[in-house]
């Protein structure tokens, strides 16, 4: 018979409704919603430049300076834009050209560009023909002048400026949102499109609201109101009568518990439904998933209320119940904070990001900006380059360039500034010298990735793709010589810091304008003495950029913001370039030819992952199906969804067998094999995978998992391959990692993870299980998997234990 228990639940509802605090909460909610209701938005073309749009100040200064002083640029788009700046900025730019250390305020540059938006006298159709124009610009260019609206005209002007200064600006959405309140625009506007705005609301605003408004304020209020339910019930005149009725004690207690949740349910429902309606009517975000906040908030309250329930049973005092519950909340919060700190400072920095191999030697970079080598003797990771505390530096993923030689680089401050600070040297790790980093060749500024193609080493940055001979790179690092040549920085990978990144340039009197320009090209990330640009004319790389070498052929597959290309490297041009003095990035002949070129449709700014295996290319762009592409023709052969609709974190070609290993946000690796028009996925057993790398010489796939362990797996040749783990790396725990594993992790396991429920909400509301944070380049990005089930399971277990203990106590005790 459930009637009596329904009566108890209904009675608790009535009791909650009779509470004055509830009505105070209601009024507070109504005032809050009424205050929020006048919010609105409108969507405009992204036109105005902001200082933070200027992604790479160093590069911009160098480009503009070159535009001013290089006679060849006088009639190009760059030169024309450079001349639009006011006199004082032009004067400073000339100083930059002379190699002086000049600071130019980004705000002043942006203001000057904004003035150019309305006066397009700088525009020349001929000059802009040679720039790389995005599809949007091409479409706007085709619209007759008299049919353009003012915002469209300003947008076109902005795109023209962006085309003239490639690589300088942060990739922005074409349209951006401006929030308004009661018809008045907010002074700050979001330079994001509607789609990103919706993502922002779903993934950040709603979870933050859940944390503070629902998770903190309402739950505390709820505990205040409901703490007296059990002590009131235990009053002799009330309890004895209830217990004399033909009902079960356990059910009576559970009914009281459910009824107690009525308070939070009533408040949360009003608040969430109100917010949902405001988001729908005022922001056009009709996301019914937002209503998931209601059950999750009630569930969160239930966890705390279960503590209050047991305390109330034990001590029969509302004050003590509130006190104990608050102490429990504080304990959970502290454990959550400590756990978060351990994640950030202990576990996170140790996570393997990239790997490189030389026979049995393993060199990795970590999320903490360290470069490490595995020492089998001590069974630990040895630091080759230490990570800095603030995690500003960026380590270029190491690549094996020859037997016993691994190349990398360290970009100081690279996480905040694309070009870092100071010059950038190639570091060659030499196996015969305990893998100590040896500074060698000067790398193009902002090099994000090194690629080995045959006997050439390619450096990729946002300005382009540059190549040098591997032999030269090794010899320049002083390896094999008794006395290594003096480097531009200290040893052990230390590089000099010269403020703006501009090298000391001889006086203009001693060298001519040509020398200035060479340095400016270098400063803006162009070719250096050793590295010469290999991109053919008309090919500019715009983020997101992916470059993969095709094994066994001197060709590269390049993806650049919606454009997929195959470049053939020509040997003779390469020879002519090596050792020859470089006079300018654009002046020498390209050493690669464009063999295939495909433009893809929209979504070009989406995060992209690419891998090449044999004659196949795997391309995964966020929020759209994955593509299986023919490496020769770049024709899309197959489109298929990512496994379990997970976001692809990384993909690796597995040898020449037209097979790929795909790492997704759930931390699992699957092998994709094509079988006719179908795709076969084979899941590998490793969990919590952080990185994958195929080691071509050994034919093994290395899978980094559980922070810093690695499995080397050999795959069978079948469509659903058998896997054999040939080698494992299980490093010994460091002291803090031991504390984490044996103290913090058990504590976190036993404590309900209430704080993480906001991640559950983020996933439920947004419908996505992960999101990428960091820069647009794949190497910088970290894809964060939202913890969806873990907090729910943890809180459910805690709730079950507390309710069981309370029920047993209530059922067995004499009152």
């Amino acid at each position, binding site marked *: *018979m459930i*009637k*009596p228990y*329904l*009566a*108890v639940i209904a*009675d608790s509802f*009535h*009791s909650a*409704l*009779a509470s004055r605090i509830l009505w105070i909460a209601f009024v507070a909610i109504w005032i809050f919603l009424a205050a929020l209701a006048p919010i609105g938005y409108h969507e405009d073309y992204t036109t105005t430049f902001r200082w933070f749009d200027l992604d790479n100040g160093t590069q911009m200064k160098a480009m503009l300076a070159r535009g001013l002083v290089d006679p060849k640029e006088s009639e190009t788009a760059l030169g024309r834009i450079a001349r639009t700046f006011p006199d004082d900025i032009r004067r400073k730019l000339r100083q930059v050209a002379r190699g002086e250390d000049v600071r130019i305020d980004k705000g002043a540059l942006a203001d000057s560009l904004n003035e150019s938006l309305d006066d397009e006298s700088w525009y020349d159709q001929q000059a802009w023909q040679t720039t790389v124009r995005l599809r949007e610009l091409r479409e706007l260019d085709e619209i007759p002048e008299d049919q353009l609206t003012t915002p469209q005209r300003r947008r076109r002007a902005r795109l023209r400026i962006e085309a003239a200064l490639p690589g300088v600006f942060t990739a922005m959405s074409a349209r951006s949102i401006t929030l308004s309140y009661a018809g008045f625009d907010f002074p700050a506007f979001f330079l994001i499109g509607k789609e990103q705005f919706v993502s922002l609301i779903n993934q950040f605003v709603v979870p933050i609201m859940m944390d503070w408004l629902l998770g903190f304020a309402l739950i505390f209020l709820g505990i205040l109101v409901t703490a007296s339910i059990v002590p*009131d019930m235990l*009053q*002799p*005149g*009330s*309890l*004895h*009568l*209830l*217990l*004399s*009725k*033909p*009902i079960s004690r356990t059910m009576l207690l559970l009914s009281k518990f459910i009824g107690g949740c009525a308070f939070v349910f009533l408040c949360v429902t009003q608040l969430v439904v109100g917010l949902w309606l405001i988001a729908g009517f005022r922001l056009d975000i009709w996301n019914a998933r937002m209503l998931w906040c209601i059950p999750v908030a009630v569930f969160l309250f239930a966890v705390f209320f279960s503590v209050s329930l047991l305390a109330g049973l034990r001590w029969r005092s509302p004050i003590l119940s509130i006190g104990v519950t608050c102490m429990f909340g504080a304990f959970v919060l502290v454990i959550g904070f400590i756990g978060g700190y351990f994640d950030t400072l202990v576990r996170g920095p140790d996570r393997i990001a990239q790997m490189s191999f030389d026979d049995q030697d393993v060199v990795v970079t970590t999320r903490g900006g360290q470069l490490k080598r595995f020492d089998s003797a001590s069974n630990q990771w040895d630091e080759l380059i230490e990570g800095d505390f603030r995690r500003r530096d960026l380590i270029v993923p190491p690549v094996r360039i020859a037997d016993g030689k691994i190349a990398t680089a360290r970009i100081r401050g690279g996480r905040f500034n694309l070009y870092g600070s100071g010059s950038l040297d190639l570091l060659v790790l030499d196996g015969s010298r305990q893998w100590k980093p040896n500074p060698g060749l000067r790398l193009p500024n902002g090099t994000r990735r090194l690629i080995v193609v045959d006997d050439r080493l390619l450096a990729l940055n946002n300005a382009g793709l540059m190549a040098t001979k591997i032999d030269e790179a090794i010899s320049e690092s002083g390896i094999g010589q008794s006395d290594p040549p003096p480097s531009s920085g200290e040893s052990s990978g230390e590089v000099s810091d010269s403020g703006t990144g501009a090298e000391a340039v001889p006086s203009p009197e001693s060298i001519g304008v040509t020398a200035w320009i060479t340095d400016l090209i270098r400063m803006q990330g162009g070719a250096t003495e050793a590295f010469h640009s290999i991109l053919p004319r008309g090919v500019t790389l715009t983020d997101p950029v992916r470059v993969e070498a095709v094994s066994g052929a001197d060709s590269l597959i390049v993806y650049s913001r919606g454009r997929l290309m195959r470049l053939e490297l020509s040997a003779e041009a390469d020879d002519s370039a090596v050792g020859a003095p470089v006079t300018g990035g654009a002046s020498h002949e390209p050493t690669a030819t464009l063999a295939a070129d495909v433009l893809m449709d929209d979504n070009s700014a989406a995060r992209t992952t690419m891998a090449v295996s044999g004659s196949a290319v795997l391309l995964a762009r966020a929020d759209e199906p994955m593509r299986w592409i023919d490496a020769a023709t770049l024709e899309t052969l197959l489109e298929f969804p990512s496994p379990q609709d997970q976001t692809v974190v990384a993909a690796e070609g597995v040898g020449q067998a037209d097979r790929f290993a795909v790492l997704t946000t759930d931390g699992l690796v699957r092998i994709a094999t094509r079988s006719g028009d179908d795709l076969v996925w084979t899941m590998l057993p490793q969990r919590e995978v952080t990185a994958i790398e195929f080691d071509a010489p050994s034919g093994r796939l290395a899978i980094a998992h559980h922070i810093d362990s690695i499995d080397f797996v050999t795959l069978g040749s079948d469509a659903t391959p058998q896997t054999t783990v040939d080698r494992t790396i299980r490093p010994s725990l460091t002291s803090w990692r031991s504390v984490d594993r044996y103290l913090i992790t058990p504590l976190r396991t036993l404590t309900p993870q209430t704080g993480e429920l906001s991640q559950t909400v983020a996933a439920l509301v947004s419908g996505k299980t992960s999101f990428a944070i960091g820069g647009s380049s794949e190497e910088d990005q970290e894809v964060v998997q939202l913890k969806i089930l873990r907090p729910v399971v943890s809180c459910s277990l805690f709730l079950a234990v507390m309710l069981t203990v309370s029920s047993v106590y209530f059922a067995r005790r*004499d*009152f």
Partner: protein
Amino acid sequence: MSQPIVDVHQLRKTYRSLSLTGRRRIDAVRGVSLQAYPGEVFGLLGPNGAGKTTLIKMLLGVVKPSGGDATLLGQPIGSSAARSRVGYLPESLRVDRHHSARSALRYYGRMSGMSSAEINAQSDALLKLVGLEGRDRESVRRFSKGMYQRLGLAQALLHDPDLLVLDEPTDGLDPVGRNEVRKVIDRLRDSGKTIFLNSHILQEVEMVCTRVAILAKGEIKAIGPIDELAHRDEQKLIVEVPGEGHGDRAPDWQAIFAPGEAAEMDVTEVRKTFRLTIAVSGQDQINGVVDRLRGAGQSISRLEVRRESLEETFMRLVETDSVASASAEIESERPSAVVGDGGQA
């Protein structure tokens, strides 16, 4: 005799607690056996701490017995079947403040498994019966203790139980209210309900109960009809003799009476008057005592023949230190007319 409604055999309850000073053990109920039969108003009497409330809690399943067994209406105590046929009025009923009398009845009726229709059908009559008619939609916040008791009585009767357990039903009521509750109990008894009444108001018990059990220190001291418990065949003759004319010495009272005539005699002197309390067994003995006194030249200012009251029975059975304090409490609760006008020194 019919099957007992309440059948208790050697029921025991021991509370154990652990404190800094060590283990504590309190034997609240020590092997109690009693029976209450259909249609009976059974009174449970005892001083504070005698174990009355513990016994009732065990009968209702609120407290688990440490030993012995008992049944209510043929069902084991604590079972749902037993509890569903019992109406209970706790000593100090507490109703949540958001209720009115009517909504409280609805709530407790649902708890007893009644449908809304059944509750509605019963509520009006019961509210009228307990005198809450017209105030049934008022918040209980404004209720006096007496109104709470009436509401408690109404809820106890709501599901038409076969057994009513009333714990101090007239506690906190004014004389008019007590009288009304007594009338309700009389009516219920007349309608054949079995009532188990726990009270420390002896007059009330004496007036409504057909049988009583006296409980002290967790044990039944006596059980049976009130007339049987009191030694009603034993009378006491109280004679007051003025003290003037006796000088400084009191008369030799034993010398006045024939041997054995006043074997049990108690003499007290109050304000120059001697009060002789003599156990007598019949009218002849009374006449003899009067004749002897008059023959000895004593004048009689007052003469009274008394039988033993329930209170005296209670006091006689519960002769302990704790009873002394309990009797003071009873004294303060008791209407002035309960004991004869002579009083006790």
